[in-house]
């Protein structure tokens, strides 16, 4: 079977995160369930960085705006 980059990354991640014990037969929903468990850490980090970055850029643009305003008024 040919493995593309996303599949290879997914498979590697899955191997690290799942125990090997067997207990139940699974429907297509389980693939979705497992994918979410796998990407949970990635999306959590990217979301946190995004929120943090938004706050920083908002803070900086507010500072610049304030500075520009005081220069204009001065």
């Amino acid at each position, binding site marked *: 079977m040919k493995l593309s980059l996303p599949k290879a990354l997914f498979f590697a991640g899955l191997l690290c995160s799942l125990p090997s014990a067997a207990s139940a037969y699974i429907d297509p929903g389980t693939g*979705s369930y497992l*994918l979410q468990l796998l990407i*949970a850490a990635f*999306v959590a980090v990217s*979301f946190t960085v995004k929120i943090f970055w938004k706050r920083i850029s908002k803070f900086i643009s507010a500072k610049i705006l304030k500075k520009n305003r005081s220069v204009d008024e001065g």
Partner: protein
Amino acid sequence: MKDEGAKLPGSFRDPSGFLFVRDGILYRQINAPYRPHYDQLMGGGLYAALTEAELLIPHTEVDAPPADPVAPYKVIKPERVPFVSYPYEWCFGQLKAAALATLRIQKKAEQFGMVLKDASAFNIQFVDGKPVLVDTLSFEKRDVWTPWIAYRQFCQHFLAPLLLMALKDFRLAQLSRIFIDGVPLDLASGLLPKVTRFRPGIATHIHAHAWSQRHFAKKPVQVRKRPISRAAFLGLIDSLETLVRKTEFRLKKTEWGGYYKETSYSDRAFEHKKAVIESFLGALRPRDVWDLGANTGVFSRLASRRGIPTVAFDIDFVAVELDYRECLANQEIRLLPLVLDLANPSPALGWAHEERASLTARGPADTILALALLHHLAISNNLPFEKIAAFLRTICRSLIIEFVPKSDSQVQKLLATREDIFTGYTPAGFEEAFSKWFRIRKVEKIGDSERTLYLMDAQDRAPL
């Protein structure tokens, strides 16, 4: 309604409750097992937040007796949706708006400790031009040990068709009609261009998702439970939202997209046609209007701008997209553009043909506009006048219809590459066939053209 008080088709799968109609009023019964979730929805502030944001259909709790005496908790009366439409009738912009509304609802629910337990596109309806969740029982308390249970459904109902329409072919929107629980992800993965495997969002939510489903199908796996952090939960929603927002449908010119710009009408004929339709609408004062073959909705707006709830159907996906964009730009709340092939209208679908209603079952409309449509049905589709009249009679009470003679340049175009076998295609043949099903009330020639507009009332009885 043939079965008063019975569960309405389309809501019988959910054990939390169901819809029913009694004395012409729509109710929803909430069953006892759903009580904790419903109480949290109402008492926790989520219902108020969502209805204020016009994201959830409002309801009132009523004293009406339950339709099913086994374990009822409450009966509520939701506001009625003026016209129920389905995802396979929506243009790209409507499906995208519905997807984003679903994710907004999910984010709002999370703030109140709840989650959407399903993300079916069929749970969204357009009310006053806005996508609104109509299934009040879609929420449950969030369990931190469970990922988003409706993730797969969201990808199948929204993400896959949006990406296929935007990146492959807009006609793939019709897959939603075949696959009633959404487009299978392995199919979407196979159809999408190979280059999408290198776009992280699509690679994750479609390609890896499809592979994961296939790989673990019928495979024994023991899942180690772990809590899903708030950042992970919101991160997933944010990732989906970013992907949906970035997915754009680029308009191409299609057969009918530039119809009004390229029409053979003179300005005078166009204005006179509008004036005659206005006068017919003034005489009829319909409660609702369906415009069949509406194109970008120029004539539909003659009805909707009078405050009449109007549905503008057209076979052309691009024309409907343009119509929808105009509705958004002008905040037109009375007009709902939809994709429909009148020669193959939306059928009854789902279990026992009952879960999704056919076009006919959603009618009849008070008035139908059938303008510059007849020649397409009669000549392009070989449909006899009598068949057209009989069908239109089943879906309306009055009809404003335009007869376009063979000498018209638009009909000549249709006949240019085929033999003219349409000997009965004459004003007399048209009037004779339609008179069996309708009473012709008014006839007006459109000035500076060879076309004629008819105002007809449906006959009470079908011909023998």
